[in-house]
């Protein structure tokens, strides 16, 4: 209690402002107020899809070990529940939460109130109806049969329309910006507003058949990560790491170089999923070369974020936002290097068509993007709700469940997938031997999924508390541990 009192006094000492500071503070409060309702709507519905999608994912995971479980219920069979999981977490959770983060961040970076708020409400409603319609369709067995594009076209159309309204509001806010310079996070955000609609339109043209359709499928499947989720994650990392630490990004030059290298190389990568497939060799080779060239932008991001954080790692002990975002940023480095290596023919010969790829995809969408979104929400919500997170212990529970859960998940599937691939390549072994060999790893996968679900439940519960401004009133930050801030340990 003594420690808390001391810390409280120290925070009071920070509370004196000059008139100019009060004005800037008032401006920022007004900006935050302008985005409160749409951002909460995006976050709330996104978190709803996260919990739903996590339950669906866990059911699908357990079915690998208990294939007859729930097998008598058609809508809970693996062929339906698995795409339900994928689409709920991708187009529901990550997209909607990402949209909420983009709305808040764009207003802050443009130092302008959000424009066309009505368009954001329309967007959120259309988007959620689209996802709900798509999920119900999948439950009833209506599936386009292409990974990442399972939703029937009307559902996809509603999501696309929602995206256009969202992009309209962001573009209008950008036009009214009060800041001359476009920060590197905004580069990623603005680029995604152009890239994603182009990608979605091209993928849904309906002019592809046979091998071309397979090529388009993986061009889309990989690029939806490239042009939508990765920009969300990197925009968040480039904002929250320096912001929380209180230190500008180490090399801004490197940040912009990373962006343009990312724009140049990343969208060629998708065809490496078809190594060994009936495509022209040059197509696959070009994709592999581009995948390896991704070392350039990834190194630019990794070095930049590491050198920004260096000397401040002790803050990971206290700040929930920083801990989630740094975990996400490190996962980005790991998953990108892994992806570059995975694209090589010699590696792909073993890892392709195995659980290894599933582990890789989860490291990207969860370890990287979702962890950064969690960190962003932990930073944004107290500012727009004007209420601190009531239970830091629940944040700690969320972090460790998510971090250990995804680590178990990825390690288990990487090991199990490699063993599976090696055995499948051995003609002297029956196929079922490769299936049986993965069983222990698949149990660990389910354990990891269970831990992540528990973390999500803690997160969702606390999110409901903060939007209702419920729970104990806090006078100090919702840190993992209260920190004695002195001149000696105060980060500079």
């Amino acid at each position: 209690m003594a420690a808390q009192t001391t810390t409280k006094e120290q925070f009071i000492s920070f509370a004196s402002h000059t008139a100019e500071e009060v004005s800037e503070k008032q401006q920022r409060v007004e900006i935050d107020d302008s985005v409160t309702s749409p951002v909460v709507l995006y976050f709330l519905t996104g978190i709803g899809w996260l919990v739903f999608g996590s339950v669906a994912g866990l059911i699908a995971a357990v079915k690998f070990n208990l294939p007859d479980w729930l097998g008598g219920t058609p809508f809970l069979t693996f062929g339906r529940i698995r795409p339900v999981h994928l689409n709920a977490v991708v187009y529901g959770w990550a997209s909607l939460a990402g949209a909420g983060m983009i709305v808040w961040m764009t207003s802050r970076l443009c130092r302008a109130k959000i424009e066309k708020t009505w368009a954001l409400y329309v967007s959120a409603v259309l988007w959620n109806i689209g996802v709900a319609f798509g999920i119900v369709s999948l439950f009833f067995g209506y599936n386009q049969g292409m990974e990442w594009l399972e939703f029937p076209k009307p559902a996809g159309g509603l999501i696309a329309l929602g995206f256009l309204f969202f992009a309209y509001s962001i573009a209008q806010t950008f036009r009214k910006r009060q800041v001359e310079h476009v920060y590197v996070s905004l580069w990623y955000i603005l680029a995604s507003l152009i890239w994603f609609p182009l990608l979605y339109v091209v993928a849904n043209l309906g002019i592809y058949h046979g091998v071309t359709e397979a090529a388009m499928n993986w061009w889309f499947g990989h690029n939806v990560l490239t042009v939508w989720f990765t920009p969300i994650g990197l925009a968040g990392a480039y904002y929250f790491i320096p912001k929380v630490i209180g230190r500008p990004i180490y090399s801004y030059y490197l940040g912009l170089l990373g962006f343009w290298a990312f724009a140049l190389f990343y969208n060629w990568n998708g065809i490496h999923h078809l190594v060994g497939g009936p495509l022209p060799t040059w197509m696959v080779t070009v994709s592999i070369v581009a995948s390896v060239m991704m070392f350039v932008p990834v190194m630019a991001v990794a070095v930049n974020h590491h050198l920004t954080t260096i000397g401040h790692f002790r803050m990971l002990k206290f700040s929930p936002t920083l801990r989630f975002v740094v975990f996400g940023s490190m996962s980005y480095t790991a998953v990108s290097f892994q992806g570059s290596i995975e694209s090589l023919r010699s590696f792909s010969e073993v890892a392709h068509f195995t659980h290894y790829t599933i582990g890789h995809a989860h490291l990207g969408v969860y370890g990287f993007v979702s962890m950064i979104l969690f960190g962003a929400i932990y930073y944004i919500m107290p500012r727009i709700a004007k209420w601190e997170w009531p239970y830091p212990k629940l944040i700690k529970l969320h972090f460790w469940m998510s971090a250990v859960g995804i680590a178990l998940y990825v390690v288990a599937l990487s090991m199990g997938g490699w063993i599976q691939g090696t055995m499948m390549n051995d003609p002297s072994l029956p196929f079922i031997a490769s299936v049986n060999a993965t069983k222990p790893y698949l149990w660990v996968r389910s354990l990891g999924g269970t831990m992540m679900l528990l973390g999500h439940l803690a997160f969702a519960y606390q999110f409901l508390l903060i939007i209702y401004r419920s729970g104990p009133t806090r006078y100090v930050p919702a840190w993992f541990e209260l920190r004695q801030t002195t001149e000696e340990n105060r980060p500079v």
Partner: protein
Amino acid sequence: MSLPVAVIIIISIIVVAGALALAAFVWAVRTKQFSIKQLNEGAKVIFDDEEPIGTPQDLIFKESTNGSPNHH
């Protein structure tokens, strides 16, 4: 749909996408986004006098002097 029409559609989209990318780059150069001054100062735009460099931003949750919780 016959192949030539499909090819025309794809090429049209490629041209539009390429033009957008080029336009973005030209706009960035014209507005001096890559000027030495902006590159040197750009990293600081996320900070201001109220949230200055050197102050960890998770510290902003402080109690106001009137004793009520104040999150801004």
